[in-house]
């Protein structure tokens, strides 16, 4: 396997001093991150179509404001857990696009050495506790991370991302009950994109707002417009503030939309084109760009320039992942199942 080129570590956009207004650089950073997510996801969709990307990939396009807004409200000492539709979370956490793309391609240079793929990107050292293929599977894990922070006496918080479908899983209810009871520093962020796989949220859920369930678990429930990045950021900031002070968890429901189908093979027969158009008109990148131009923070040319830089980044990620990165060595398939042991001829043997 070839050596991985030295990869520049990307930092999360530096949050402004608490209570202060976001600076111009900060806002450009938010826009850039959203564009990166969109461009990455579009590229993923294209590579799936060309059968260069194998397996499943669930694309985050349309929901960028939620990940970027939320992750901009936390710091290096905080954690997130992600979902099968979680590329956006990883990008928002500052994960390297090249290593992410390599992971989706199953290459040895990927974040998980090609073992996890699209649905399991993780960067635990940087407090991205990973994505899971089980809907709702990380809600208890995030709760545990919050428990660890409480036990250690740290004022770290945990952002737990999940969808409207997961809000009906038992894991959601058990976790929110535990977090509410023990006042764990977990911010539960439900990205309600109105559909599970093909079944509409309104057909699956007994209530029309998930945020209302917070009342059942002794925590505040907040509804936000998931297409507006600053609104999401503000809601998360308040929740983070509460959690750091030991006031416990918050449930935030971000109303948003996924532009693509559940996965590549989904023809979206369960949605109307009118509905999709409505949400395209509320594209979070478009809305934020318009706001930035209107308030004079950026010009159209500057925005276009950022887009061009982003496109170049994505092209570089594609090159790195598809052309330059090797596949893992098949003889290593049994590594890292356990710590300190490996499969031998007659069973497990110590390493």
């Amino acid at each position, binding site marked *: 396997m070839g050596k991985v080129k030295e990869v520049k570590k990307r930092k999360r956009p530096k949050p402004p001093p608490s209570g202060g207004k976001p600076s111009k650089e900060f806002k450009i950073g938010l826009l850039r991150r959203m564009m990166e997510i969109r461009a990455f996801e579009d590229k993923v969709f294209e590579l799936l179509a060309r059968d260069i990307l194998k397996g499943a990939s669930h694309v985050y396009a349309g929901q960028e404001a939620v990940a970027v807004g939320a992750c901009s409200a936390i710091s290096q000492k905080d*954690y997130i*857990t992600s979902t099968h539709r979680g590329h956006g979370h990883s990008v928002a956490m500052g994960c390297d696009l090249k290593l992410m793309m390599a992971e989706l391609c199953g290459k040895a240079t*990927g*974040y*998980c*050495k*090609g*073992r*996890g793929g699209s649905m*399991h990107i*993780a*960067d*635990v*050292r940087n407090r991205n*506790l*990973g994505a*899971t*293929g*089980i809907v709702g*599977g*990380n*809600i*208890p*894990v*995030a*709760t*545990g*991370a*919050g*428990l*660890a*922070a*409480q*036990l*250690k006496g740290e004022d770290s918080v945990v952002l737990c991302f999940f969808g409207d479908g997961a809000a009906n899983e*038992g*894991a959601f209810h*058990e*976790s929110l*009950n*535990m977090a509410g*009871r*023990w006042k764990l520093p977990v911010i539960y962020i439900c990205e309600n994109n109105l559909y599970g796989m093909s079944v509409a949220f309104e057909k699956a859920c007994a209530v029309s707002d998930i945020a209302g369930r917070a009342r059942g678990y002794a925590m505040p429930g907040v509804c936000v417009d998931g297409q507006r990045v600053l609104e999401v950021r503000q809601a998360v900031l308040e929740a983070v503030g509460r959690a750091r002070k030991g006031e416990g968890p918050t449930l935030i429901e971000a109303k948003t939309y996924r532009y693509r189908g559940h996965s590549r093979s989904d023809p979206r027969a369960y949605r109307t084109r009118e509905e999709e158009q409505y949400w395209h008109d509320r594209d979070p990148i478009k809305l934020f760009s318009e706001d930035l131009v209107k308030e004079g923070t950026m010009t159209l040319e500057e925005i276009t320039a950022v887009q061009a830089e982003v496109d170049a980044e994505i092209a570089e990620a594609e090159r790195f992942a598809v052309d330059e990165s090797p596949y893992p060595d098949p003889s290593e398939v049994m*590594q*890292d*199942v*356990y*710590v*300190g*042991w490996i499969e031998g001829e*007659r*069973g*497990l*043997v*110590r390493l």
Partner: protein
Amino acid sequence: MPVITYREAIRDALAEEMRRDPRVFVMGEDVAIYGGAYQATKGLWEEFGESRVRDTAISEEVIAGAATGAAMCGMRPVAEIMYVDFMTLAMDQFVNQAAKNRYMFGGKTTVPMVLRTEGGAGRCIAAHHSQSLEAWFVHSPGVFVVMPSTPYDVKGLLKTSIRDDNPVLFIEHKMLYGEKGEVPAEEYLIPLGEAAVRRQGADVTIASYSRMAFRANEAADLLAKEGIEAEVIDLRCLQPLDIDAVLESVKKTGRLVLASEGYKNVNFVCEVAMRVQEHAFDWLDAPIERVCAANCPVPMSPVLEDEAIPSTEKIVQAARRTLGKA
């Protein structure tokens, strides 16, 4: 040497590890003030407080899941699932998240958690409180499964499990909590993946674990009266498994009886038998025998329960069959 009970040995192990390492904490249903359904955590809440010894709601999924998340963030949780029968509710978190996160994330995380639970029949509490489900978990890559039978073993193995960086399912037996045995006061650890030869013999090997290890010993005593010398092995740890101990014994005796309280169908001992067949085929002088629980939900009535689970007599008969003396 002090003689203490199995439950006291568990409690001592937990207390010692919690004193030694501030990252170790306990959580589960009724573990704190009540001291555990079988009193295995009695006294810990008093010593370590309610932050480190936490009563949870009846929420097996988040008990296992929170342990997973806390472990990934540097803690060493010892969570309890009161009955192994309830592991079904915790399955996804344990088998899909805890077991697989290390591998799926390219080896870049560890999940150093212990899930303590207990199983087994003998109390007439029927099908949902009497099972032995270890086979399901040995079948899941990424998980260790430990099933000690004596107070000495349970203490040494629990301490090792807590210090191990892998997710460990530690399955005690409800009928063994009162079992007394010698346990040194000084600190000791028992490595994972090591079986214990309880008795030496040349005629037939009897391998088992948990409560069945006692019945195997009893069977060996009865067989000795008939002039049959059995070699008795207590496996203690199902994953990693000390198959070499079994192979060495089978090469000596040529005959093997496997006893387990799991249901007969796809019992864990089928895996043992397969490995023996793979690596010691030529040394077998008779077909391998297995003595397992009947393929029915564990019944409540004592007469039926005794019939359904393996008895000492059934182990004796199996041993006789390997010698052609049925």
